[in-house]
């Protein structure tokens, strides 16, 4: 068991100190805390605590209509005034107030992307209770929380979207991967988060997979800008010497994508413009005169087996062009500092929105977004990203998916309903037997972080109630009924659809 990378708090206002914490928080926080809106997998806002919204033509004023009937975990109703109070506890670039039962956001500057801003995890709604606890409105409430060790999430009976299928989730943190596999195989855990390099092995062992889109940027990050043109050339040579394709094939088992950009191709559409091809000749041409061998120490998170493997492979790649790279394990590097000077980092993409995703990545890495960016224009976003990468403080390497292996008892309709982008929709899974089941979560970076989630099950799968995630009952969704063979009734005079003329003559009876 490792002590690092543990989630100490789940509240929206909490500030994770490591990328590992941040990633796990992104997955779990929506189970307990909800915002006004969320972004779907296409990056479009969808209702959560707000059911409708509109803006003025200049995007300086937005009105959000609050979902009627929603309640906090302590039973108190969700109202516009309460939400306004919650929203004003954090620093905002806008004024928020209630007007005629709606939440109104106003700003001197246009806010065309306000729904995406409000969908960010740190904008989720939470409020303190008189007993000092923090409550949200999500499908689960926090039953127990032992910082960094374990937690129990309990199904919220009055959730506006319907009660979750399982009674509770037991979360245990900081378990080594070997234990996770053992627990999965022994049936003590039902879902474990696995490193991407284990995907093929997991599938071969017969386990189902929950796999996200590429949601994590793996990159080499320099703690400071280049000190001289020579330093810049050195970094460029380093970038050109890396054989991403070979790493992708061998170490990553073809999971993920080679990256030359911060945002993955599926979000930006222009990722392919950033070169990822190894060019040894060009790399050598950028290096100083023969005889001088540049050296770097590259840190990686000590518990991250994949990072270690990749760092070692990078060392081999750059050695071929005359650069020496020394992989150095680092214990739990915080998000906001880099020791040593070059670090192999893994940063989660928090949200499926170009601006917010890029802003989040830049913020985590201490980079500054160009101010004059028109976020509505893809070319402008491309230029902003190019600007961020210009001084080679960051060398993107891969965009990686996040993967879970699922035990035999866990049921869901489609894996993409449960996990495709950051939120892990455990409210939509159920477990086959009326027994406790467990889910283990490793950290996104592989081996350090384990969360064990145990489900107390309320409904066996065959009588799963009609809730979110259950099959639609509208048969028209699946087929196109025809009334093409209606025949004569009552002497061959009439048969009308429904009861328009003859109540006894329904469509089904006509077929």
């Amino acid at each position, binding site marked *: 068991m490792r002590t690092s990378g543990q989630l100490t708090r789940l509240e929206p206002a909490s500030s994770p100190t490591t990328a590992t914490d941040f990633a796990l928080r992104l997955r779990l926080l929506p189970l307990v805390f909800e915002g006004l809106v969320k972004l779907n997998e*296409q*990056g479009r806002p969808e209702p959560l605590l707000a059911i409708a919204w509109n803006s003025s033509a200049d995007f300086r004023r937005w009105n959000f209509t609050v979902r009627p009937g929603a309640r906090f975990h302590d039973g108190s109703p969700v109202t516009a005034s309460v939400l306004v109070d919650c929203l004003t506890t954090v620093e905002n670039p806008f004024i928020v107030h209630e007007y005629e039962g709606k939440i109104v956001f106003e700003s001197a500057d246009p806010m065309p992307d306000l729904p995406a801003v409000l969908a960010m995890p740190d904008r989720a709604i939470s409020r303190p209770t008189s007993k000092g606890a923090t409550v949200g409105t999500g499908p689960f409430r926090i039953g127990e929380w032992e910082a960094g060790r374990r937690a129990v999430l309990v199904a919220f009976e009055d959730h506006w979207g319907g009660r979750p299928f399982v009674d509770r989730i037991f979360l245990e943190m900081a378990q080594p991967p070997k234990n996770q596999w053992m627990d999965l195989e022994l049936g003590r855990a039902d879902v474990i988060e696995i490193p991407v390099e284990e995907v093929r092995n997991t599938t071969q062992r017969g386990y189902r997979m929950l796999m996200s889109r590429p949601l994590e940027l793996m990159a080499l990050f320099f703690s400071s800008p280049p000190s001289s043109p020579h330093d810049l050339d050195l970094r460029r040579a380093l970038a050109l010497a890396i054989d991403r394709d070979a790493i992708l094939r061998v170490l990553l088992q073809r999971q993920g994508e080679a990256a030359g950009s911060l945002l993955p*191709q*599926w*979000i*930006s*559409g*222009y990722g*392919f*413009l*950033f*070169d990822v091809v190894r060019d040894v000749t060009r790399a050598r041409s950028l290096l100083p005169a023969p005889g001088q061998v540049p050296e770097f120490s590259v840190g990686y998170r000590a518990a991250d087996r994949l990072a270690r493997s990749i760092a070692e492979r990078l060392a081999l790649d750059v050695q071929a062009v005359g650069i020496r790279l020394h992989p150095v394990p680092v214990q739990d590097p915080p998000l906001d500092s880099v020791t040593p000077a070059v670090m192999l980092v893994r940063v989660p993409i928090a949200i*499926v*929105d*170009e601006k917010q995703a890029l802003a989040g990545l830049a913020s985590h890495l201490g980079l500054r977004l160009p101010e004059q960016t028109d976020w509505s*224009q*893809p*070319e402008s976003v*491309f230029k902003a990203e*190019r600007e961020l990468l*210009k001084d080679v403080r960051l060398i993107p390497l891969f965009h990686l998916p996040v993967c879970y292996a699922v035990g035999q008892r866990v049921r869901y309709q489609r894996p993409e309903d449960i996990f495709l982008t950051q939120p892990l929709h455990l409210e939509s899974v159920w477990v086959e037997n009326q027994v406790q089941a467990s889910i283990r979560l490793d950290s996104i970076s592989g081996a350090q972080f384990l969360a064990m989630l145990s489900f107390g099950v309320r409904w066996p799968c065959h009588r799963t109630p009609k809730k979110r995630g259950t099959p639609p009952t509208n048969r*028209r*969704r*699946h*087929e*196109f*009924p*025809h*009334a*093409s*063979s*209606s*025949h*004569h009734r*009552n*002497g*061959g*005079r*009439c*048969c*009308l*659809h*429904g009861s*328009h*003329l*003859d109540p006894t003559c329904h*469509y089904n009876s*006509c077929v």
Partner: protein
Amino acid sequence: MILFVATSRVSGSDLGQLARQLASRISALPDGSRAVNLTARENGAVSEQELRELRRLLTEELKKRRVAVSQEPSALTIVLSFSEALSGKLLIAEIRRGEAPEAIILPVPAGPSASTPLRRVSLQKSLVWRQGEPILDFVLLPDGLLVLSPGKVSLIRNEVRGWTLEHVWDLRGVEHLPRDPRGRLLLTGSEFRAYLPRFECHAAVQAGSALACEPSNTGWPVVPGDSSDARLRLAKSRNYFDQLRTTNGPLPGLPPFYAAALLASQTGTVWALASLDGNTRFYNSRSAEIGRTNAWGPNLASAQVPDCSSWFLAVTDSEAGNEALQAFQWMTDHPMVGSERLELDGVSTALWADEGNRVRLVTRDLKSGRYAAWSVALDCAD
């Protein structure tokens, strides 16, 4: 059912617009060459044909701006490709010069097929009436039915003992029907109104009420209750129409047509006319032809499905030679299938728009020779 179009089309007009925009940007490149080498990168986002078409259009636009397209080594290399992003489809012109990536990126206009799922409708047809005489049109009443046949309008009541012919209004001597008889029957309040060649008749929907007929040249309404009051004028002694008129006057330059259907699309009003040469031609509100198909028969109608857009209904032939009714959605410059085929019992002889999400269909069974009136309902299938 929601159909996600994986490789969505970019319409011809969009390609033209993109080519103009791109040519303008290329010609304005700082330090830009007056010669460019255009290549295209296929990645499945659009078809090879569309990429070729874009290259052709761009070459033309560049020439207009005095930028030559050349394969000379000195020419600036530009690689064209389409790409999918969260925000939609992008046209990317990668400019190959220098080390830093350089590109012109243009968002492709989000046509219905570009990023939104194509909606579909289900068709349900319900048999309303059968008779040996031709049925030109019919109107459903809360407790009965009006049927327009050559020479008469019949009122049929639905009573406990079954369907009873309650009254017949005699139209003989009024109309001069062509060999292929046509007529339109609409309900306006408590009256029905029969539109016949050169005559218009009306009477209260009540047995024994007086029928009034008068010569008329105002045309037949296309869609009941349509605010534009679009009307069709039947050509003299013919079974086709020669004029389409709205409140703004006749649409100029239209060919004669057997049927017309009107729908409101994302890009404005679209008319479909079944012209005499077997083609169905599509026009915008300025009478400009914006598309054409030869896959539809001469009967057309449109329907508005609440929360599910407007639809063309057309009769098409199946491989087995049977007729079928199918719904189509207008996609910028072409109709796209939006429903399953609803096989018909026989051949269609009339298809008219009805109120809301329904159309009226008349078929003839070629074995028995009898005519059948059907009410076809469209419902959103997702």
